[in-house]
C-alpha cells in the first residue's frame, strides 16, 4: 500500500497533532496493551509518516485501523482539536479501496452490511429467521459445534423479541396535553429489530412531553456501520436517501435514540457538504432534546438504583453527557450514581465485537469490573450496540443489573412503561 | 614523608599564616597539624598536595560535630574551612543567599533576619554552613524547615581529586544536569570539600509561639503528637521524658505517673497560628512557654553531654512500639512522631552495651534507619555507627564506586562515614 492512497485530508488533519500524548489514557486499546502503536497518537503518527512517505505503508496501518474502536474518546481528551474520527474513517476507506485481494471476512462483512443490514425488509426476514432458530435452541446447538469466534458471536446475539415488539411503528403519534411541537423519529436498523420497545417508549415519552411524533416509513439505515468499515460510498448513498425523506417533513427536530446513528447523522455534512447543514442541524438525541426543551416532571416514582453509561458516540462524538444524567435525576425515587468507567468504551463499537472479539472482551471487562463495584439495579445507556454488549457482559459476570435505554426509565416514570420485566 | 615535610609543603602553598599546630580545642580530634586555606584555590592546592603524597585530611568547620562518625585511622592534616567565610550576596527579593562554607549559621541569620528571611538548617548557630550541609544536620524544627538538602540550590565544590567545580545555581527550580547537590549534602566530606553555595531561605514567620502540654498515656501522646504535627503552622512537635523536659526548661511542677510532656512550636501567619493554638487547647491542657525551650532542646540534642545518643528514623506508625522498647532498655527519649525521628539517650558509658543491643533490635524490628551519634570509643571501634542493624551492602558498593572516582587517592575523611568509606 503506498502513501499516496491516503487522502490529503488525513495529512492536513495530522498536522494538528502536537504529539502531547494526552489522548493515551483515554484510549481503550492503549490502556489494554500499553503500546504506542495502539494509541491515537501512534496511529496519527503512522498516518502522517505514511502520507509523507517517511515509512513504507505495511500491514501495521491496516491492523491498527481495525484494532481502533473508533470510540473517539481521544477527541474529547485532545487539547488541539484533532479530528481523529474523520481521519480514521478516511484511512479505513482508503485501505478498503486498495486494489488487491481483501480477506474473505472483509468481503463478507461488506456484503452483509450493504445487502442485508441496510435493507429493512431483508433484515427483518433474517431476524425472524434468527428468532425461530433461537426458539428451537438451534443456536445453542450450533454454538457448541462451531469454532470459538463464531460461538462467541452467537453468545452476543440478543434474543430476538417477538412479533409485537418488531411490528411497524405508527406513522403519527399525537401529542398529549398542551402541544409544544412536532418531531420526527429516526428508527435506524438494529434498534427496530432488537429493541422495538425502545422506539415505542420513545414515542410515548415524547408524546407525554407534548410533542407530535412522525415516523417517516421510507427512512433507512444511517450508514454508520458502513462508513466505519470503510464503505464510505455506500454510506453516502444511504445518507442521501435520509436527507430526502426527512427533508420533506415539517419538524422541529429529528430525534434519534441510538447514539451511533445520531453521531453519523449529525456529521453528514462531512459526507454531503453544506447542503446537508439544515438536516444535520436538526438532529437531536432524545435525551438531549428533552433536556433542551425542558422535561415535564414525570409523575410516577421509580424505585431503584441506576448507573448511567455514556455511549461513545453520544459523549465523545456528540458531546452529550450532562443531559441524560439530568433526566434520570429528575425521576423521583431513582437513585442515580456515577460509576468509574461510565465514559469509557464498552467494546461494542459497531461490528467490532465480531471483528476483534478478543480486544472487545478485554475492553468490556474493564467496564464490567466498574459496574460490578457499583452494583446498580439498572444500567441505562442510549445505544443498541452498547446495550447488547453490556448485557452480554452482565450475563457473563452474573450481575443482577438490567440493561435499559434511559428513555425506558422515563417511560416508566410517566406510567406508560414497565422496567421491572426481565431485561435484556 | 614526615609531618615536617608535609607542613613545609603546605606552608609553601598557602603561606605560613594558614598552617599551624592544632590547639586545645582541635587537638581532641587527634590531629596535630591544621591547614586553613583562605580560598577555593587554596583548598584545591591542599587536596592536590595531599593526594600526591598519599596523605589524608579530616575536614572541619567549627568542629561542633567532631564526635560524629566512625572511628578513623590516623589523619595527617585537619583541613579547616573557617577561612572560607562570609555572606557574599543576600538576594532579599528572591530569598536566596550565597555564603562561604565556613560561615556560621548565626552569621547567616544575622544577615537574613533583618530582611525577613531565615535559613532553614537545623544545626547550632555556631556550626558552619559547610559542616551542617555535610552531615545533613537535623534539628528540632525539622518539621517546619524540611530536610537540609531541600535548601541547597547550588554548591561550589572541590572534588577529592582537587578539581574546583560548580553545580546547581541560584534559582529555585533547576534540572540542568544531574542533581549533584543532593549527592554532596550529607556525604560527610567523603567526596569533596564544600567551598561555598547558594541556599534557599524561608520567610521569617509573622509570629512564633511555644506551648507545652502534659499528656497522659490514655490520651495517646504519640497519636496526638502526629495530629499536632499535621496542623498547618506546626514547626516543632516533640515528646519529652520528664528529665529531659526539665533540662530544656519546659517542665513545671510534678508530672503525673507516665505522663509525657509535649512541646510544640507554632510559627506562621497570625490567624493560622491562632487557629492552631485554639485547636491544641481544645485537645489538651496547655501552658504557654516564656522561654525558648525548642532552642534549648536543639542544644541538648546536638551537643549535649551523654554517653550514648542514637537517632532512629521510623514511619510515624512505628514510633510508639519502638519507643516502648527503647525505654524498657533504659533510654530517655526525644520523640518526633510527626517526622518519625526518635533520639534515644543513655547517660552512662556502662549503658553502652545495652544501648547497642536495644538500638540494633529496634532497627531490625521496626525497620528504622538508625545511627549512633554518640557512643563510647571502644564501642564505636567495633561497629559502623551508620545504618545499624540493616544490610546496606548494595548502597555501600555504589558509594564506594563514587568514592573511588571522586577521591581516588582516598584523601578525605578516611573511614569516617558509612561502610568505613
Amino acid at each position: 500500500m503506498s502513501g499516496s492512497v491516503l487522502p490529503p485530508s488525513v495529512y492536513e488533519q495530522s498536522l494538528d497533532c502536537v504529539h502531547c500524548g494526552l489522548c493515551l489514557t483515554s484510549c481503550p486499546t492503549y490502556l489494554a496493551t500499553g503500546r504506542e502503536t495502539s494509541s491515537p497518537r501512534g496511529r496519527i503518527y503512522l498516518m502522517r509518516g505514511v502520507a509523507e512517505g517517511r515509512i513504507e505503508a505495511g500491514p501495521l496501518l491496516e491492523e491498527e485501523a481495525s484494532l481502533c474502536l473508533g470510540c473517539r474518546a481521544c477527541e474529547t481528551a485532545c487539547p488541539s482539536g484533532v479530528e481523529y474520527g474523520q481521519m480514521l474513517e478516511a484511512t479505513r476507506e482508503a485501505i478498503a479501496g486498495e486494489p488487491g485481494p481483501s480477506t474473505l471476512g472483509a468481503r463478507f462483512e461488506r456484503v452483509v452490511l450493504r445487502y442485508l443490514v441496510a435493507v429493512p425488509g431483508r433484515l427483518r426476514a433474517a431476524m425472524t429467521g434468527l428468532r425461530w432458530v433461537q426458539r428451537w435452541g438451534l443456536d445453542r446447538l450450533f454454538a457448541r459445534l462451531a469454532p470459538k469466534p463464531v460461538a462467541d458471536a452467537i453468545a452476543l446475539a440478543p434474543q430476538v423479541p417477538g412479533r409485537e415488539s418488531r411490528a411497524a411503528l405508527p406513522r403519527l403519534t399525537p401529542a398529549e396535553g398542551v402541544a409544544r411541537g412536532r418531531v420526527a423519529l429516526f428508527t435506524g436498523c438494529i434498534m427496530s429489530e432488537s429493541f422495538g420497545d425502545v422506539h415505542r417508549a420513545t414515542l410515548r415519552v415524547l408524546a407525554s412531553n407534548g410533542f407530535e411524533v412522525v415516523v417517516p416509513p421510507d427512512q433507512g439505515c444511517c450508514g454508520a456501520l458502513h462508513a466505519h468499515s470503510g464503505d464510505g460510498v455506500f454510506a453516502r448513498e444511504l445518507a442521501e436517501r435520509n436527507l430526502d425523506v426527512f427533508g420533506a417533513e415539517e419538524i422541529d427536530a429529528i430525534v434519534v435514540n441510538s447514539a451511533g446513528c445520531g453521531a453519523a447523522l449529525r456529521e453528514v455534512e462531512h459526507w454531503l457538504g453544506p447542503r446537508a447543514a439544515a438536516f444535520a442541524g436538526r438532529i437531536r438525541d432524545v435525551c438531549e432534546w428533552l433536556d433542551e426543551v425542558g422535561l415535564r416532571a414525570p409523575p410516577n416514582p421509580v424505585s431503584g438504583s441506576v448507573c448511567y453509561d455514556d455511549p461513545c458516540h453520544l459523549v465523545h462524538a456528540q458531546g452529550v453527557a450532562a443531559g441524560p444524567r439530568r433526566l434520570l435525576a429528575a425521576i423521583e425515587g431513582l437513585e442515580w450514581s456515577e460509576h468509574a468507567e461510565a465514559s469509557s468504551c464498552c467494546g461494542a463499537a459497531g461490528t467490532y465485537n465480531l471483528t476483534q472479539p478478543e480486544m472487545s472482551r478485554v475492553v468490556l471487562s474493564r467496564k464490567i469490573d466498574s459496574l460490578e463495584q457499583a452494583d446498580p439495579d439498572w444500567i441505562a445507556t442510549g445505544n443498541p450496540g452498547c446495550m447488547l454488549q453490556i448485557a452480554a457482559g452482565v450475563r457473563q459476570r452474573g450481575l443482577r443489573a438490567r440493561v435499559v435505554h434511559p428513555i425506558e426509565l422515563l417511560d416508566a416514570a410517566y406510567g406508560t412503561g414497565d422496567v421491572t420485566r426481565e431485561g435484556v | 614523608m614526615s609531618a615536617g615535610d608535609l607542613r613545609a609543603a603546605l606552608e609553601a602553598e598557602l603561606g605560613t599564616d594558614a598552617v599551624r599546630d592544632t590547639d586545645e580545642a582541635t587537638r581532641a580530634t587527634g590531629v596535630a597539624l591544621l591547614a586553613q586555606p583562605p580560598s577555593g584555590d587554596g583548598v584545591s592546592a591542599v587536596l592536590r598536595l595531599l593526594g600526591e603524597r598519599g596523605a589524608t585530611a579530616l575536614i572541619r568547620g567549627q568542629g561542633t560535630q567532631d564526635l560524629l562518625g566512625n572511628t578513623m585511622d590516623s589523619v595527617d592534616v585537619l583541613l579547616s574551612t573557617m577561612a572560607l567565610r562570609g555572606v557574599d550576596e543576600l538576594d532579599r527579593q528572591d530569598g536566596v543567599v550565597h555564603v562561604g562554607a565556613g560561615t556560621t549559621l548565626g552569621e547567616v541569620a544575622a544577615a537574613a533576619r533583618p530582611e525577613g528571611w531565615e535559613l532553614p538548617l537545623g544545626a547550632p548557630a555556631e556550626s558552619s554552613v559547610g559542616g551542617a550541609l555535610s552531615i545533613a544536620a537535623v534539628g528540632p524544627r525539622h518539621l517546619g524547615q524540611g530536610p537540609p538538602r531541600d535548601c541547597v540550590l547550588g554548591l561550589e565544590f572541590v572534588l577529592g581529586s582537587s578539581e574546583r567545580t560548580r553545580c546547581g545555581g541560584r534559582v529555585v527550580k533547576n534540572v540542568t544536569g544531574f542533581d549533584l547537590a543532593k549527592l554532596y549534602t550529607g556525604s560527610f566530606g567523603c567526596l569533596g570539600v564544600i567551598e561555598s553555595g547558594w541556599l534557599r531561605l524561608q520567610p521569617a514567620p509573622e509570629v512564633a509561639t511555644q506551648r507545652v502540654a502534659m499528656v497522659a498515656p490514655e490520651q495517646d501522646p504519640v497519636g496526638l503528637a502526629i495530629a499536632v504535627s499535621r496542623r498547618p503552622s506546626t514547626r516543632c512537635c516533640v515528646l519529652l521524658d520528664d528529665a529531659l523536659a526539665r533540662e530544656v526548661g519546659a517542665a513545671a511542677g510534678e508530672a503525673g505517673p507516665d505522663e509525657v510532656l509535649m512541646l510544640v512550636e507554632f510559627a506562621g501567619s497570625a490567624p493560622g497560628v491562632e487557629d492552631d493554638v485554639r485547636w491544641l487547647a481544645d485537645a489538651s491542657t496547655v501552658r504557654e512557654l516564656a522561654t525558648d525551650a525548642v532552642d534549648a532542646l536543639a542544644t541538648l540534642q546536638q551537643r549535649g553531654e551523654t554517653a550514648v545518643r542514637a537517632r532512629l528514623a521510623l514511619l510515624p506508625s512505628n514510633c510508639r512500639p519502638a519507643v516502648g522498647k527503647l525505654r524498657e532498655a533504659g533510654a530517655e527519649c526525644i520523640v518526633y512522631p510527626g517526622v518519625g525521628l526518635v533520639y534515644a539517650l543513655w547517660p552512662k558509658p556502662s549503658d553502652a552495651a545495652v544501648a547497642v543491643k536495644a538500638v540494633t533490635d529496634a532497627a531490625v524490628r521496626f525497620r528504622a534507619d538508625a545511627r549512633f551519634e554518640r557512643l563510647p570509643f571502644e564501642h564505636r571501634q567495633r561497629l559502623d555507627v551508620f545504618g545499624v542493624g540493616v544490610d546496606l551492602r548494595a548502597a555501600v558498593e555504589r558509594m564506594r564506586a563514587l568514592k573511588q572516582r571522586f577521591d581516588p587517592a582516598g584523601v578525605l575523611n578516611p573511614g569516617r562515614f558509612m561502610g568505613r568509606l
Partner: protein
Amino acid sequence: MDSLVASLKDIVGSEYCLARDEELFVYECDGLTLEGTRPLAVVLPDTAEQVQSVVVACREAGVPFVPRGAGTGLSGGAHAVPGSVLIECSRMTRILEVNVTDRIAVVQPGLVNAALSTAVAPHGLFYAPDPSSQQACTIGGNVAENSGGPHTLKYGTTTQHVLALEMVEPDGARVRYGSPTGFAEGFDLVGAIVGSEGTLGIVTEVTVRLSPIPEATETLLVVFPDVPSACRAVGQVIQTGLVPAALEIVDQRTIAAVEDSVYAAGLPRDAGAILIAELDGAACALPPEVATIRELSESCGATRFQVAANEQERSDFWRARKGAFGAMGRLAPDLYVHDAVVPRAKLPEILAAVCEIGDRYGLRLSNVFHAGDGNLHPNISFDRRDPDELERVMKAGREILETCVRAGGVITGEHGVGIEKRDFMKLVYEDQDLLPMLHLREAFDPQGVCNPGKVIPQTRFCVESNPHARGYDRVTFE
C-alpha cells in the same frame, strides 16, 4: 540482532516485543518531535523481573538500552540511540501499596501521575508534583526528569517526594535505594537518581510521599495590562514571604489561542497578561493572603481581580493554563516549548527581552509559565517544513537561553536536558563541572549502555576508548 529480538520475545511475549519497521517508526520520538531515531526493538515488560532479564539480554548482546515512560518528555530523553532497545514501562501501572497513616505510596513506574492522585483522593491525600501533562506522564518519567508543575512552588518538585526506589542497573542487578522514612543512611543516592534522566538505570518501583489535601483553596484570576507588570506583582508576592500554592502567568497571544479552542473559558482577550494564583491551607489563614495578593497586584497595575466563587469557576481559571499547550498546537504544525529559569526579580526584564527576541526573528512567540518559580516557557509556533523559519527558531532559542543564563538563570527548570539541550550545558557549566557528572554516570554505568548520549556533552574528560560512548555523543540535535 535477530537472536536478541528472539530472546526479548521470549522474555516479554511476542506481542510485547515490537521489531517491525513501522512499529519502530512510531517509537522514534517522544514529546520532542523535531528529530527521531528508530530503536532496534521496543519491549514492554510487565514486571521488574522482566525488566531485569531484558537488561541482561541487552548487555549480553552488547546493545544499549533506553528507558521510556509515556513518551511525553520534551527534551528527547526517551529518544532511542541508534541500535538501542527501547524499554517502555507503560504496562507497569500498578499501585502496590497505599499507607494512609504514614502518607506514603509504593507504585510501579508506568503509573500515570494523575491516576495516583485520583486513587488516594478518597483518603484525603494527593500526590503534589503536577506537571501539565499529568493526565499522560508517568511517575517513572517524573523521577527521571525531576518533574515540576504549577504546585511545586509550595510543595516542591518530584525529588522532594521520592523516598525510596528500586532500580535495575546496567549490570542487571536490581537494587533498592533510600527508605520510606526519608532518612536513609549513606549518600543521598535517591536524590542523585531523581533527575538523572534515565541514564543511571531503569527504575522499577517508587516509594513516594503523599500530601494532605488542604482544608481550603482559593484560586484567583488577575488581569494585567502587560506581562512585565504581572511579573513585578509576582516578584513582590515572593518578597513578602507569602508562599502561594501556584503563581502562573499566561500572555495575550496564549489567551487568544485558548479562547479560540475548546478550552475557551471566557477570558478577557484584551488582557495583556493573566496571573492565575492559588492559595491553600487553613481556611482562616487565606483571607489575609488573598488581600495581600490583591493589594500587590493593584499596586502593579492590575485591572481586574477575581476570586473563584466555586469549583466550576476554579476549573475554568485553570483550563486556561492547562489547555494552553494544546491550544497553541492549533496555530501551526509545530510548537517549540522552551524551559528556562531566572531569579524571580529578573522576570520583568527577561520577559521583555524574550519578546524582543521573538519579534526580531519574526516568530510567533507566546509565554505561559510558572512565574512563582521563575520558570519561563516561551513557546514558538512554526512550520518545520519552512527551513528558514526553522533556522530562526533555533537561533532565537539559543539567544533566549543565553539571555537567561546571563541573568543568573539556567537552561532548564523541569523538562530536562536530554538530547535537546545537551550542547547548551556549556552555557552553564565548564568542562570541569561536568566531570563529577561523568563520575556519577560511570559509577552506575561504567560500560555506557544505559541511555548513552544524553545530558552530558562531549568534554575533554570523555573516554574515547569506550566503544559505546563513541557515536552516541555524535547524535546531535539541530
